[in-house]
């Protein structure tokens, strides 16, 4: 990405008014030849991890080699995440909109030659319809994208996030211009109120009401007031905020600047998880470029309005996603939450009125201003308006980032957009809301995904992680996983959370070992309630949710563990054993070589066996077997040693 040149070219220009911005946008659009070929390489984390950088380099080299005439020479552009991560690295050729997936560096030459020189698609790189097997050349025709309604993600994938000019050409900061030229702060707040936008970070508190509350607090306490962006997206398996910050940082900035205008704030903070270095880099760059254009800092767009932002990098604490912990962290302390009996719009950062919204909420604000509250309220369902971005992961074919109108049913998202579970069987459960959320069983597959419906079934919207589980996932194990995660991430300040999560997890550990009684199930529920009631912050307050919801919907599976000593999904180590199917085993020795316990024996090219006394159920044999010969048995085979001990 051409950061340095971009940065240099701004020093000459400062946008003195809203009209100036419009003019600049038109200039930028005019500079662009709509017929100019563009090679867009997705630089989302998934694609990068899969080798997008190498693909880009190879494409560049191939273009140089091809010696294309500079006039027709296409532009290579890198963008934020296109969302279809399981198919990365992704390359899109514009203006045709050809969509190449799973591109390797070695494909570069062919792409250049076939597509750019000869104008033909490279068939084997196209997405194939899973049903018909027909190639689908264009992105918008792929089922994964067809069902989506990409608004917040609108610019992502088409603009280079490191060059503000692209975003401006695509309409960034027009909402800000609109606000500064024709809207009073009151107008802005009521517009957001009317839109029905609710916080995208978890609890779904109406954003407009929050801003209104801040205005009231300011009346009482005066300024300064702060606007803060919560980019400490910590839920494992959720990465939509990351992709928004990386792919369209200006949307976030614009939303915050608009709020700052409405509230009269002069300073804002963006708190970003440190595991997101690219997001930090892009935000930083975006701020710098916005400042040099006069879109941020003193006298924004020539007005009297001054507002600046600072990025606070998180330092590795999930709990800092909790609002009060995030404030203490910005203040430079250990990120322990404070009791929230006085709301943060009254007493937030440094005890001042503070408006905290998450990344996706902020990115929605310019859309509302640009298109009007009524337009926004028309999307989705009543009380849950607009769209929501989800990261769809787990046992689903199309892993990636999806944006759908609120109220879309669970099954639509998973089966139609997500392409269902690999292997075609129905999903077993979907975990939404991250560690604070719950598991929704297949039987509730038609539940509309909106704030209220999800809470009704015991889960929550959360920040938008959607983890699909199949029959080979054990609910006890998943509940333990989330508990262990939260146990590790608990700040340790209050006793119910610090001790309770460990104790709850230990009780589940017993279950996973087949120990426990039905009475313990009730005790788990009782302790879960105590933790919910007694914990200081939302982390502890919602921590028992995964356990409580799985108990609600999958009680039988829990009981199977203790009553039959059986893990139906074949996951809980103590209740399973591995066995080699003597028919299927080819004696390739791969498993025997990898087994850390040297528990697998057998001659070459003859079926192998596992010594149950040595086996530690690490599962490496299962993972490494290329012939499907390793089987999981539950209830476990009783090992020779324990047999002997028993006799």
């Amino acid at each position, binding site marked *: 990405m051409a950061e340095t040149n971009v940065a240099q070219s701004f020093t000459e220009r400062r946008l003195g008014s809203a009209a100036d911005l419009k003019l600049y946008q038109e200039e930028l659009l005019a500079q662009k030849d709509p017929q100019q070929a563009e090679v867009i390489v997705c630089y989302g*984390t998934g694609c990068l991890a899969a080798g997008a950088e190498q693909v880009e380099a190879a494409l560049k080299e191939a273009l140089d080699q091809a010696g294309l005439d500079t006039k027709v020479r296409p532009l290579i552009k890198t963008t934020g995440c296109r969302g279809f991560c399981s198919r990365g690295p992704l390359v899109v050729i514009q203006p045709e909109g050809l969509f190449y997936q799973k591109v390797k560096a070695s494909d570069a030459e062919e792409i250049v030659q076939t597509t750019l020189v000869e104008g033909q698609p490279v068939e084997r790189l196209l997405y194939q319809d899973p049903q018909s097997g027909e190639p689908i050349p264009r992105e918008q025709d792929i089922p994964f994208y067809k069902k989506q309604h990409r608004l917040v993600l609108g610019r992502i994938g088409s603009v280079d996030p490191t060059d503000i000019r692209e975003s401006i050409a695509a309409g960034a900061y027009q909402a800000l211009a609109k606000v500064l030229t024709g809207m009073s702060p009151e107008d802005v707040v009521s517009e957001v109120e009317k839109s029905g936008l609710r916080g995208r970070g978890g609890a779904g508190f109406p954003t407009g009401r929050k801003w209104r509350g801040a205005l009231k607090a300011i009346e009482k306490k005066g300024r300064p007031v702060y606007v803060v962006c919560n980019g400490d997206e*910590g839920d494992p*398996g959720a990465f939509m905020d990351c992709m928004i910050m990386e792919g369209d940082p200006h949307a976030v900035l614009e939303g915050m600047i608009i709020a700052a205008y409405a509230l009269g704030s002069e300073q804002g903070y963006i708190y970003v998880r440190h595991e997101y270095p690219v997001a930090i880099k892009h935000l930083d760059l975006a701020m710098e470029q916005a400042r040099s254009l006069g879109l941020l800092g003193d006298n924004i767009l020539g007005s009297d309005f001054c507002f600046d932002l600072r990025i606070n990098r998180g*330092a590795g604490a999930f709990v800092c996603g909790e609002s009060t912990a995030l404030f203490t*962290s910005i203040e430079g*302390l250990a*990120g322990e939450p404070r009791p929230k009996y006085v709301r943060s719009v009254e007493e937030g950062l440094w005890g001042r009125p503070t408006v905290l919204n998450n990344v996706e909420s902020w990115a929605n604000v310019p859309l509302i201003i640009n298109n009007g509250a009524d337009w926004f309220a028309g999307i989705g369902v009543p009380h849950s308006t607009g769209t929501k971005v989800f990261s769809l992961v787990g046992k689903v074919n199309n892993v990636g980032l999806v944006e759908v109108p609120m109220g879309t049913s669970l099954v639509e998202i998973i089966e139609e957009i997500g392409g269902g579970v690999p292997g075609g069987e129905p999903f077993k459960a979907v975990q939404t809301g991250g560690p604070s959320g719950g598991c929704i069983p297949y039987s509730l597959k038609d539940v509309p995904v909106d704030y209220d419906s999800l809470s009704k079934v015991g889960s929550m919207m959360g920040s938008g992680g959607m983890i699909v589980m199949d029959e080979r996932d054990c609910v006890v194990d998943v509940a333990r996983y989330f508990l262990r995660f939260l146990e590790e991430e608990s700040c340790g300040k209050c006793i119910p959370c610090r001790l309770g999560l460990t104790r709850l997890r230990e009780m589940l550990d017993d279950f996973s070992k087949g120990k426990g009684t039905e009475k313990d199930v009730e005790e788990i529920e009782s302790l879960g309630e105590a933790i919910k009631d007694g914990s200081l912050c939302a982390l502890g307050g919602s921590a028992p949710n995964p356990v409580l919801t799985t108990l609600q919907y999958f009680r039988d599976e829990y009981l199977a563990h203790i009553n039959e000593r059986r893990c139906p999904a074949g996951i809980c180590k103590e209740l399973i054993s591995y066995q080699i199917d003597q028919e299927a085993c080819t004696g390739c020795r791969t498993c025997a070589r990898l087994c850390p316990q040297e528990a697998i024996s057998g001659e070459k090219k003859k079926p192998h066996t596992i010594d149950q006394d040595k086996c530690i159920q690490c599962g490496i044999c299962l*993972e490494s077997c290329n012939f499907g010969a390793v089987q999981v048995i539950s209830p476990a085979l009783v090992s020779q040693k324990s047999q002997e001990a028993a006799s």
Partner: protein
Amino acid sequence: MSTAPVEVDIDEIIERYPGKQEYLIFLLQDVQSAFRYIPPEALELICDHTGVPLSQAYSVATFYKSFSLKPKGEHQVKVCLGTACHLKGGERLVDDLERKLKVKAGETTADLLVTLETVNCLGCCALSPVVVVDDDYLAQATSGKLNKKLKSLAAQ
């Protein structure tokens, strides 16, 4: 013979920020990324600069997972334990690496060669389970792939 400086000027880092408590974490982060851990002297200097009592800075440095008070190894192996990676066997990889490296997650091998860490989610769930070695992503990592990678580290 000439070498690029390996050590970073700690005073230069300190002077990047005003001496206020709100910059404590910034300073710790910069020191952490420069030294890959927070040396005791640096912690004291940061305290002098920000006016934060040593005990409080120590508390902050031990609270956040990204800070280390012990020197890190030359290479970092990070296993993702996000939900997607968990479902696809991330824990198994941690167990496996712990056995291979003979350290627990979060520790560094005695020869200061490798530090083994776990992370909550790297945001590339499509590739799960993922292991990152230095800046190299191992997609759909397996015990076999890790063996190869570790060997290449030792050979460097």
